[in-house]
């Protein structure tokens, strides 16, 4: 694919995410997944899971780091190398921030006045439960052979995958271990057991 076409599509996708990105980082992760994996096939499901891992293991807002990673990986996957990838990352992050910046500069005064209006409240009341569903849909997308080696391929790898899954669930929900630590522990488990 022509590199300019790819840059343009990338920019457009993240512009859309910037306009409709309600519900915080994990809801935006689902939107970016739909653009980058489902619609455009820039990344595989497994690669996108790796991107989410990187975002959870590094500081900073998930919405920003995921845009940067997807921008980079899309270009590298298409064969445009390191520098093409860096430009893709910058483009994706800029596109994602642009709508909010423009809105703020152009209609900040008007915005402040009407943000408490009940029409806005009603709109957001509809959006909120939906964003939970979007994050949940990403979990369903992630329950795939890319992330849990299929038992037909290797019973041992499948078993270890399930054990790691349960470990991470318990470590976070019961023992309140941070995401970065859990990811590091599971990376080590992967080296030893896989």
């Amino acid at each position, binding site marked *: 694919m022509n590199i300019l076409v790819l840059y343009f599509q990338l920019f457009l996708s993240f512009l*859309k995410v910037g306009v409709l990105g*309600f*519900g*915080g*980082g*994990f809801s935006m992760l*689902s*939107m970016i997944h739909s653009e980058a994996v489902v619609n455009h096939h820039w990344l595989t499901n*497994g690669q996108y899971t*790796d991107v989410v*891992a990187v*975002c959870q293991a*590094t500081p*900073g*807002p998930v*919405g*920003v780091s995921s845009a940067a990673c997807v921008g*980079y990986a899309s270009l*590298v996957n298409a064969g445009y190398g*390191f520098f093409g*990838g860096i430009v893709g990352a910058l483009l994706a992050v800029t596109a994602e*921030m642009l*709508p*909010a910046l423009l809105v*703020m*500069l152009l209609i900040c005064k008007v915005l402040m006045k009407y*943000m408490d209006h009940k029409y*806005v409240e*009603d*709109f*957001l*009341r*509809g*959006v909120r*439960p*939906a*964003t*939970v*569903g*979007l994050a*949940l*849909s990403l979990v*369903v*997308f*992630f*329950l795939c052979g*890319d992330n*849990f080696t299929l038992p037909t391929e290797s019973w041992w790898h499948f078993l*270890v995958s399930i054990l*790691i*899954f*349960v470990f*991470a*669930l318990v470590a976070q*929900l019961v023992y309140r271990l941070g995401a*970065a630590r*859990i990811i590091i522990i599971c*990376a080590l488990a*992967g*080296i030893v057991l896989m």
Partner: protein
Amino acid sequence: MNNTVFGIFLKVGLLAYGNGFAILPKIRKEMVSRHHMLSDKSFDILVDVAKKCPGVFAVNIAMFLGNRVGGWRTAVAAAVAVVLPSLFVALALVALVVGFDDSALVSKVLMGVRPAVVALLACSVFKMAKVADVSVRSIWIPVACVLVVYFFGISPLLVVLVAGIAGFLWGRVRDEA
């Protein structure tokens, strides 16, 4: 002014982990208590507006606060500062992952990490559901979203738009009653 704001948000971007709202006490301490750039009250108002806006919360609040204390140049400086650290760190790590994913070591690491990421994401959904007050009566909404997005391939962007419009219309019906 620009340099001070840039410095504050650079630190915030470097330290921010997970939930976007966790960065607020830090920003408040720097901008309100230490540098007296704005009052507690206007800080609260701006946070409230930023929470309702689409996009990345940390970026939005950086822009709003920057704009309030120094105009659009400060807004851009604050936004750049808040994304810069994560941009560097995340890119460095993802470049390693993408560049070496055919090496035996990296592929073992990823096989260990991927199931954990799915679990962590599931935990986040629980937390989101709590914050969004999803109850037995409203649980059909997230379930319906999963069905249309996963099985019918509808874009999450469209789902958000439709959900918002539905919320708006429901509000009007309620007003009539």
